[in-house]
């Protein structure tokens, strides 16, 4: 829904949510269901963010940014009635059981929600400036390395050097929930339906350019066409950099905050290839191809170092997914759709931006990997679409094309995500809440960060801290 | 209120029902298969030169309200004997006479067992009390008011007659005296619910006396004649020689009947005094009565009651007084006899109830013997069955009256007829459940609707009431 407004018109809402991705729509549905007047503002012409299904070749569809997303917490899935709104997820691939990581994830969810529900106390005079924080679940993971845990390196952005201490944190990230029927776009439709039926307004095609404050509190969001949205609370689902560096002027926020944000490192980016095949490759009728297949060639440490240096690794860690093995309607009859996800791809190679040649080189490398795993792929190839980190940045407004919202290292996770004063949802700016990939729950679960921010908004409203 | 009503069967129930409906304003046609009316009361069983009814010679259950409302006394119904005492013949000793006078009964039982003599009065009083309370269920379309009666009824419904009698009495002679009555309706005396038949018999009333047996002057045929007169006076059309073969249905309502000749008689209401089995199985298209009902009715009761009438030249000493004489040695024999009859064999020691009738011509005496239990479908061919039955009964009678066989001038045998199964649930069911059928407009008004099969006309009166009410409501 695109609103047309003239210059200078102010509209008043209880909550304004920036970004209509999974988090934004979930937050919008949550708040609207509890009676608030909510608007979700989206820059793109349609809602969904990285939950999209794209027809990249006539008759061939795939989700461009990822095939699967981290799990939506069951309570939120049920409360938003997503299955009955059309989002049916296939069974997650049989995972290596990691009960420790699952338990910690659940505890983190509980912890973030508990923090959100407690409005911050007014600091009494003469109290220490930074009160000691309660310990976070999973802190012992932050001391171990992945190699010690003996687990495989999770892909899709959780890439790190497994021998480094603290790399075990990456275990928490991105256990997938299975593929939705019809691609991730169905999830976006379901979330959108949930939000609209609850009464939220979704405005597409409007870009928020800045947040205006009065006496330190966020009171209005300025849009690209000059109009303003006034609201009592703002939830930003953009990543950390965009939230603090692009929505505010360079001299508006304290220097220390700007330094912290600047120091927040991005995770290794991923590149995706969407392949349209005229026929399923030989050997793909195996049961194994119903799940994502890791090409066991990568040396994760090497790849990580190559990424740090700004080069494309020789043998990037790759995951292949034969989408039509699970959902046969994503390609025309008799054809197949294959996706290749490459990890440790730099956003800006050391020798300049991504040129046509560099893309082709990466594409050939990926096709070679695919051919090795599934002989006959190249022969049956009809079309290829490639997405590299700059494309992600352009299309989703994510700094450095980083779907993870920030590196998953021990210093940037749990209580430190994105920084201690902002753990969870509340930012140092009053009236502004952070959801999205850079928040504590961002890379761990889908929709959870948005709902946590919504919970914080409700708690603060009940406590009278929001006008 | 206009409307055609058909009544199938011109026995006492059929005629009574027809009369009631005619008095309520309906146009009633009674269809009778035989040439003469009366059913079990008509003199159809030939004994030498005489003809006697094929049913019991004495009435016990004729509803006094029917007698009053249809003014049967004015039309000529009178009773020759009003209260037949129960006499149990003993091989060893005097016959045991249990009359209405409790003191005399006490004296009669005391030589056998003092304890039983004391208990007999109590037993009879409590039975008659409960039986009077049960009239609310068995005479009206009502329910038991008091909780203790309901409990008592429930207990009796689970008790067999044998258990009941065993628990009250100890002397064989006294228990055996009730052996014949315990087999009423074709129930085994050791089956649950058979004590209900004893209770039901105690609930009946003849000539103002509870639990009495009375013989009308002229025999049961007189009752049939009187009822026919009442029916004809009320304007009922009785057609004899019309055997119904089929009932016509439209959807689930009855529309008429087809007679053997092929004639079709249309009527919106049909009352049948025939058995439930005949009415619902033989007359209706298959399944019209309901599959479970049809399945239940498929097999008739294997055990029934037969009648043997002996024309005697001289009166045997044992049968001197007018009495209802029961010939049974022990109560246990009844269960054994029942088992034998269920298997299709003539029991070696059946229970007999003999009543003496005087003819006023030659030969002068008729001994009417009701025999229970007898197989309805015997394994022997009819000739062999008759012979064996005759031999068995004569042997039993000879034990008490020697030289009886020599005095027999002629005999007549009415073999047991198939009838509906009797269950405790049927005896305690409501009148609606017994009279109404799954087919709309079809009612049962004869033995099938009575709690215990007997010549009563009570079911006919109530069924006529139901039918009249439905006709007034109009068929939807």
């Amino acid at each position, binding site marked *: 829904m695109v609103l047309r407004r003239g210059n200078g018109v102010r509209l008043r809402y209880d909550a304004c949510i920036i970004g209509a991705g999974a988090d934004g729509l979930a937050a919008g549905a949550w708040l609207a269901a509890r009676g608030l007047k909510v608007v979700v503002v989206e820059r793109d012409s*349609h809602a*969904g963010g990285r939950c*999209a*299904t*794209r*027809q990249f070749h006539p*008759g061939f*569809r795939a989700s461009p940014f990822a095939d699967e997303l981290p799990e939506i917490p*069951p*309570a939120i*899935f*049920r409360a938003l009635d997503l*299955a*009955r709104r059309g989002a*049916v*997820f*296939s*069974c997650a691939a*049989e995972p290596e059981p990691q009960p420790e990581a699952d338990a910690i994830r659940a505890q983190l969810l509980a912890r973030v929600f508990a923090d959100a529900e407690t409005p911050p106390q007014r600091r009494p005079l003469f109290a220490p400036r930074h009160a000691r924080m309660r310990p976070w679940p999973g802190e012992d993971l932050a001391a171990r390395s992945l190699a010690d845990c003996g687990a495989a390196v999770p892909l899709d952005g959780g890439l790190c050097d497994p021998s480094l201490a603290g790399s075990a944190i990456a275990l928490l990230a991105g256990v997938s929930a*299975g593929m939705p*029927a*019809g*691609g991730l*776009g169905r999830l*976006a*439709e379901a979330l959108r339906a949930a939000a609209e039926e609850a009464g939220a307004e979704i405005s597409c095609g409007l870009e928020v350019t800045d947040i205006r404050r009065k006496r330190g509190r966020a009171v209005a969001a300025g849009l690209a066409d000059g109009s303003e949205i006034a609201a009592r609370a703002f939830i930003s689902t953009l990543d950390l950099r965009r939230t603090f560096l692009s929505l505010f002027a360079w001299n508006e926020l304290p220097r220390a905050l700007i330094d912290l944000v600047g120091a927040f490192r991005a995770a290794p980016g991923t590149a995706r290839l969407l392949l349209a095949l005229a026929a*399923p490759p030989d050997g793909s*009728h195996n049961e194994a191809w*119903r799940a994502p297949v890791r090409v066991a060639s990568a040396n994760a440490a090497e790849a990580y170092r190559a990424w740090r240096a700004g080069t494309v690794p020789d043998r990037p860690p790759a995951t292949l997914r034969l989408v*039509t*093995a*699970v*959902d*046969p*309607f994503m390609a*025309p*009859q*008799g054809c197949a759709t294959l996706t290749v996800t490459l990890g440790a791809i730099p956003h800006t190679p050391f020798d300049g931006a991504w040129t046509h040649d560099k893309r082709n080189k990466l594409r050939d490398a990926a096709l070679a990997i695919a051919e090795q795993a599934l002989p006959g792929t190249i022969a049956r190839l009809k079309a290829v679409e490639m997405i590299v980190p700059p494309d992600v940045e352009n299309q989703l407004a994510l700094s450095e094309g980083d779907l993870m919202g920030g590196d998953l290292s021990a210093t940037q996770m749990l209580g430190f995500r994105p920084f201690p004063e902002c753990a969870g949802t509340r930012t140092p700016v009053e009236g502004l809440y952070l959801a999205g990939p850079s928040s504590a729950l961002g890379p761990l679960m889908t929709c959870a960060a948005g709902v946590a921010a919504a919970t914080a908004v409700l708690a603060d409203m009940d406590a009278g801290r929001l006008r | 209120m206009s409307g055609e009503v058909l009544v199938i069967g011109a026995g006492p129930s059929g005629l009574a029902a027809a009369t009631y409906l005619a008095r309520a304003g309906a146009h009633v046609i009674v269809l009778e298969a035989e040439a003469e009316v009366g059913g079990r009361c008509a003199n159809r069983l030939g004994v030498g030169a005489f003809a006697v009814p094929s049913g019991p010679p004495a009435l016990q259950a004729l509803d006094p309200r029917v007698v009053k409302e249809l003014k049967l006394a004015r039309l000529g119904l009178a009773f020759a004997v009003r209260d037949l005492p129960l006499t149990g013949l003993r091989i060893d000793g005097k016959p045991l006479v249990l009359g209405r006078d409790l003191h005399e009964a006490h004296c009669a039982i005391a030589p056998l067992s003092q304890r039983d003599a004391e208990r007999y009065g109590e037993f009879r009083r409590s039975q008659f009390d409960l039986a009077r309370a049960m009239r609310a269920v068995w005479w009206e379309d009502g329910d038991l008011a008091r909780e203790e009666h309901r409990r008592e009824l429930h207990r009796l419904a689970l008790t067999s007659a044998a258990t009941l009698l065993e628990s009250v009495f100890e002397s064989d002679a006294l228990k055996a005296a009730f052996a014949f009555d315990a087999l009423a309706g074709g129930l085994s005396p050791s089956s649950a619910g058979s004590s209900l038949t004893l209770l039901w018999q105690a609930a009946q009333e003849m000539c103002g006396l509870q639990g009495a047996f009375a013989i009308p002057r002229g025999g049961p045929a007189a009752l049939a004649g009187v009822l026919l007169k009442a029916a004809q006076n009320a304007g009922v059309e009785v057609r004899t020689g019309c055997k119904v073969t089929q009932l016509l249905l439209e*959807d*689930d309502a009855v529309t008429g009947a087809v007679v053997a000749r092929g004639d079709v008689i249309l009527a919106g209401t049909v009352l049948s005094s025939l058995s439930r089995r005949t009415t619902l199985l033989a007359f209706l298209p*298959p*399944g*019209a009565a*309901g*599959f*479970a*009902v*049809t*399945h*239940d009715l498929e097999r008739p009761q294997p055990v029934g009651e037969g009648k043997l009438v002996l024309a005697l030249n001289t009166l045997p000493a044992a049968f001197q007084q007018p009495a209802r004489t029961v010939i049974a040695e022990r109560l246990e024999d009844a269960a054994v006899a029942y088992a034998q009859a269920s298997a299709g064999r003539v029991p070696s020691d059946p229970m007999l109830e003999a009543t003496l009738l005087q003819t006023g011509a030659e030969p002068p005496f008729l001994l009417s013997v009701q025999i229970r239990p007898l197989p309805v479908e015997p394994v022997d061919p009819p000739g062999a069955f008759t012979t064996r039955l005759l031999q068995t009964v004569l042997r039993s009678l000879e034990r008490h009256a020697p030289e009886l066989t020599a005095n027999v001038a002629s005999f007549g045998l009415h073999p047991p007829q198939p009838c509906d199964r009797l269950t405790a649930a049927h005896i305690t069911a409501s009148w609606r459940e017994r009279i109404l059928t*799954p087919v709309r407009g079809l009612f049962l008004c004869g033995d099938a609707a009575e709690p215990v099969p007997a010549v009563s006309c009570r079911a006919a009166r109530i069924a006529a009431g139901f039918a009249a009410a439905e006709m007034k409501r109009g068929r939807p």
Partner: protein
Amino acid sequence: MSLLATPFHARAAELSRNNVWETRNGFTLASCYGRTDDEALAARFGAVLADISWHWRIEIAGLRAVEFVSRLFTRNPASLMPGMALEALWLNDAGAVRGAGTLARTGEDSFRLVAALEDADWIARAARLYGVTIADKTAAEGGLALIGPAASKVLDAAGLDGAPEPMSARRVSWRGLDVTLSRFGLGYELWCEPDIALIAWDRLVAAGQGWALRPAGQAALDILEFESGLMRAGRDYRPARDGFAPQPSPQSLGLGGLVDRSHIFNGRAGVFAGGPDSPLSGVLLDGEKPVPGAVLTHQGRALGRTLSSRFSPAMRCAIAFAIVPGTWPASGLMAGTMPCRAAALPFLPIPAPMDATEPSPAAV
């Protein structure tokens, strides 16, 4: 464990990874081949193949078959053309449900009944009254169910042309095999003789390779039926086995829609005396543990009970059937100790086969 194996048992034994079996109507069937959740969800993506040879089937034939069948079932089958079918109940004399099934007409005087629970004695006895023969065909043929959006595509790929219309059946000659194709339930059914059963299975699996066809066990079938709001005798309610018991009546089970009141059938008077229909509805629970037979309470007041319950992997919560007379409260409903809310059936859209003429869903 029983000794009766369906004609497809050999394939089930090969494919079963966890060796989990269950007995239905005397047959041994795979409860799941791998993970139940996987199989139940696969039916919403591509298609699943399940063994339904355990369904009780009888052939009703005779000169008076139409009359008999008309009297037995609660809907009028006289107007069915050969090859068409209808769903109906059969009741006892007092109007209580004895069974539910699909009745198909196979000829002028012959019918075929497919039901989940057998009631051979009753129907045989009733048929004797009309001189109609009942032949039990359960052991004489095997049945496969093909359920999912890709079901019609799999049939096409296998060479079975012309998928049947809903509630119809026809015999097809399939490259030398004689099979019957029908569409009675959630998807298609294929019925064939035991000798060629395994060949039929293999052909379908080969055709389904391009359509993500997976074998599904009985537990997954149950979940699909549950999510589609279909009740089954034996699992969700106990049908009457007495000739005269008045419960369960069709209205109390929400099956009043399968009863044609203008038709004459056994037990009709009881249905009219039964009262209005209490519709079957669903309950969504806020948890993952099924709650069969739990008491539904609203603010301390008991409203009714849930019938049976399953975990739905697509909805990630436990679901249950329940019948509550009157209206459902808007909030505050509890099933036992778990909060829940009412939902109209079906819980999820039926995974019906997508027609060949329908365009595939447009891209976002």
